[in-house]
């Protein structure tokens, strides 16, 4: 099951990239740089999806106290952090190409950067706590609070930015670009599912090793 999902992910991402890079014509306004969006936006989507997943799993853990939810949340955080880090790197490369500046206080970019800090904090707390149940509790708390602040962070940055600069008009998407983007969305989501399954299984094996029964000597 996992292997086929992995192969499918690989295939669809490859096809999506080829379409995005070679087949689809470059965007009239931005030119070639616009092709970066076919990887920048899907990774941002995967990052957001991962952190929403963490929010759900963390809430489930807080209610049911089953360690499996915590393991899923932790897996999603790890993948989410990788995805969001990539999103920011790609965002600044794309920003450099279009606005000519490496960093731009664009509400989306700023919010994703802040989210990265939240979930890096999640991973640091996770690495510092030995007891699995204690670790699960604190991480679930951060998972929930981390996600709850996203809308307000975005809103406050958006208002703040619109004071200094008229908000950049949302890029209008011609249908053919739209299709390519949607295809890549699906491809990267399958990739996310594959990584989740694999990381979760690894986490489960590592946990069972950690809890090796009452006679485990220190």
């Amino acid at each position, binding site marked *: 099951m996992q292997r086929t999902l992995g192969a499918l992910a690989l295939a669809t991402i490859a096809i999506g990239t080829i379409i995005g890079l070679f087949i689809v014509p470059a965007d009239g306004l931005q030119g070639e740089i616009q092709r970066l969006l076919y990887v920048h936006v899907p990774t941002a989507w995967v990052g957001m999806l991962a952190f929403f997943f963490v929010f759900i799993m963390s809430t489930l853990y*807080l209610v049911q106290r089953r360690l499996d939810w915590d393991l899923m949340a932790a897996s999603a955080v790890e993948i989410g952090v990788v995805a969001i880090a990539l999103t920011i790197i790609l965002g600044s490369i794309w920003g450099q190409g279009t606005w000519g500046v490496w960093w731009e206080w664009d509400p989306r970019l700023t919010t994703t950067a*802040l*989210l990265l*800090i*939240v979930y*890096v*904090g999640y991973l*640091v*707390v996770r690495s*510092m*706590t030995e007891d699995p149940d*204690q670790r699960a*509790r*604190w991480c*679930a*708390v*951060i998972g*929930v*609070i*981390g996600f*709850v*602040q996203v809308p*307000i*962070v975005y*809103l*406050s*940055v958006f*208002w*703040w930015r619109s*004071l200094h600069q008229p908000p950049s008009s949302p890029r209008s998407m011609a249908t053919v670009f739209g299709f390519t983007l949607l295809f890549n969305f699906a491809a990267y989501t399958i990739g996310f599912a594959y990584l989740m399954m694999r990381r979760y299984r690894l986490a489960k094996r590592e946990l069972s090793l950690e809890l090796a029964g009452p006679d485990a000597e220190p």
Partner: protein
Amino acid sequence: MTELVRRAGAILWKDLLTETRTRQGLSAMLSFAALILFLFTFAFGADAALLSRIAGGLLWVAIVFTGTLALGRSFQSEELAGGARLLRLYPGDVRAIYLGKLAGNVLLLAALELLLFPATAVLFQVELLPHAATLTLVAFLGTLGFSTIGTFFAALTVHLRARELLLPLLLFPALVPVVIGSVGATVETLAGDPFGRAGGWIRLLTAYDVILFVVCMWIFPVVLEE
């Protein structure tokens, strides 16, 4: 409900007593805040007009940094008395601990601000008195937001090894709306609120304070659990 408030009051009473006796918290905060203000004066002092224009921002930078210092100490007295978790031995809702510590932090920060605002007025030549009412409201909302999420993460990190690193790391993203809202409202108010935007910032602050308080109260019992 009244039992919750009474026990929160007991914790507040204990912490204020400790604070007035040792004076460590407030004096450390005041000297730190003074240091920040003077640094700003040296850094931007040459251009008085600039200084007074960004006074609102500098003020909140001083409050947030000094406040983080105070947050780190809010569970210190518990650690010296056997650990914050022992407070769970008392009957009743664990949230009383959160409310007691939250009130303590808000009062401590209010005491700091009572001195910090006039100092800013003098150092940065800004007229505060005409806007006293709005500024008090903004200061309260900003301090409440800061303390609500700050006390929560202080309780979480007090059990962790590198808590000096972790408290700011966890706190910083959550503080962005509080800082943006407070600074926005303060700067607009000080400038006489020409575009009427202060009200918008105040609504953002109020909404965020409410959301943070509800979420923190809901989750807090998990934080002290073992």
